[in-house]
């Protein structure tokens, strides 16, 4: 499945990474090379093989539904790019 420049723009938007027009061609070349490598998989017959998502066959542990963490808002917000009144600041999203 060959990619084109429109695909690069679409994928970059999904990934929330700005790719300028001047970078797009280089990105396309490199990603096409990697996809070429990945294409080797298509030669393998995997009919009936159960997908392996993890090396261990374990289930998620459960714990008691009790408070285990203390509030460290000030510590955590001390490394934030922008905060005010204990809230993270971002550009306005609701008019």
């Amino acid at each position, binding site marked *: 499945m060959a990619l084109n420049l429109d695909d690069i723009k679409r994928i970059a938007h999904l990934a*929330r990474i700005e790719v300028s027009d001047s970078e797009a061609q280089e990105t396309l070349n490199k990603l096409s090379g990697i996809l070429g490598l*990945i294409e080797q998989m298509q030669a393998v017959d995997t009919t009936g093989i159960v997908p392996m998502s993890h090396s261990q066959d374990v289930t998620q542990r459960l714990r008691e539904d009790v408070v285990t963490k203390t509030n460290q808002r000030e510590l955590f917000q001390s490394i934030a790019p922008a905060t005010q009144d204990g809230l993270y600041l971002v550009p306005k999203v609701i008019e």
Partner: protein
Amino acid sequence: MINSSLKQLGQQLASKQVSSVELTQAYLQRMAQLNPTINAYVTIDEDKTLAQAKVADARIAAGEFGPLTGIPLAQKDIFCAKGWRTTCSSKMLETFISPYDAHVISQFDAAGAVNLGKTNMDEFAMGSSNETSYFGGVKNPWDVDRVPGGSSGGSAAAVAARLCAAATGTDTGGSIRQPASLCGFTGLKPTYGLVSRYGMIAFASSLDQAGPMAKSAEDCALMLNVMAGFDERDSTSVNREKEDYTRGLANMTGAQPLKGLRIGLPKEYFAEGLSADVAQVIETAIAEYKKLGAEIVEVSLPNNNLSIPVYYVLAPAEASSNLSRFDGVRYGHRAAEYNDLMEMYMKSRAEGFGAEVKRRILIGTYVLSAGYYDAYYLKAQQIRRLIAQDFVEAFKHCDVIMGPAAPSTAFKAGEKTSDPVAMYLEDLYTIAVNLAGLPGMSIPAGFAASSEGKALPVGLQIIGNYFDEARMLEIGHAYQQVTDWHTRMPEGI
């Protein structure tokens, strides 16, 4: 002293021949002298380090100490350490001061070890040469024109140049074992789930595993004793009893300490792609193992070649999800100028991530996008099972598997940076081990001459069955009792 084993250093500290402050200062001086050239450390904080050494000395004076108390270690900059800048060698986290400790860091703190600093790495552990680091490449101490391997390249160079007594690394597709091979020391990637991933910045969560990087198998055993153990904060941490990984080392004496051991040699590891000089070193090492009493059986890992394509679907897919947390909102880089929230995300991530990290996020996003999931992600997961089953089959015929850890000796800086696919092939013998979740290690097995006549290290890979680390370390230790490759140091260091 700089070439002493951890056991020797521990004895000198316990008997008060040297204090932790003195030992730490000796390493800090070497770092001040050599790090500007090698670039193994990205963050050094002498005050913090010496404060830890003083605490260690107090513990030793009070008689409350263990094997690693007062020993100066290097920590890969992927582990969050409270109050330390923790960057993952990315511009995204250039100013990030961690508000908490990773499990690995708190385990070493509890053991009384001293943190010498945070080591350079490929950005977000994505690379095999340390050249994707935002803070510049790392020099291989055996030949400064060559790379140390990656992604744990800073820890690797620090161990090889004796800029620490030992170090930590992480291994998602070979990031401990390949640099161990290229820099000539012992590195172990444990079974997936043995060491907690809590506070270890995530790349590909189903593959990431932390492990020790040190001079010898014995040193790695002492490090693993501290690192391994159940941690409820990592949902994939395995709840099993603590082991003493040094317990069998003393038995590795006599003429044939490995009598009865069956070593499997996968024919695929000795096929096209392996350079002749590496093959020769590996064959000589195998012959040494025969002398130690082992028998050799041929095994097959028929799907090994597929491990690279499978990895470059699964690891980027997991990475694209894991790295979505870097959005410029709560921590990390935020662009200076933007008009709305979308632009803030897109510019912050475009500026904060380097080229290789962006490529992998984009590949991961693509293979997970609507319409492509079955063809890529699901297919890769199915082949992952075939790869893991190859090992199950092979271990019916042998106790451990041996082969090269990397296809060649250290290559020159810049040699593979323009072609990502050529770089990916560096991990031909390591990736399948991560996909299967098995433990693997690389031990120094000799040298091959570079084109300029310099001696470059070669590592022998030992792959064990699940949770067989103690046995693998015995097997490495037995070899290190009759060879001295692991004690060799680069000239001029």
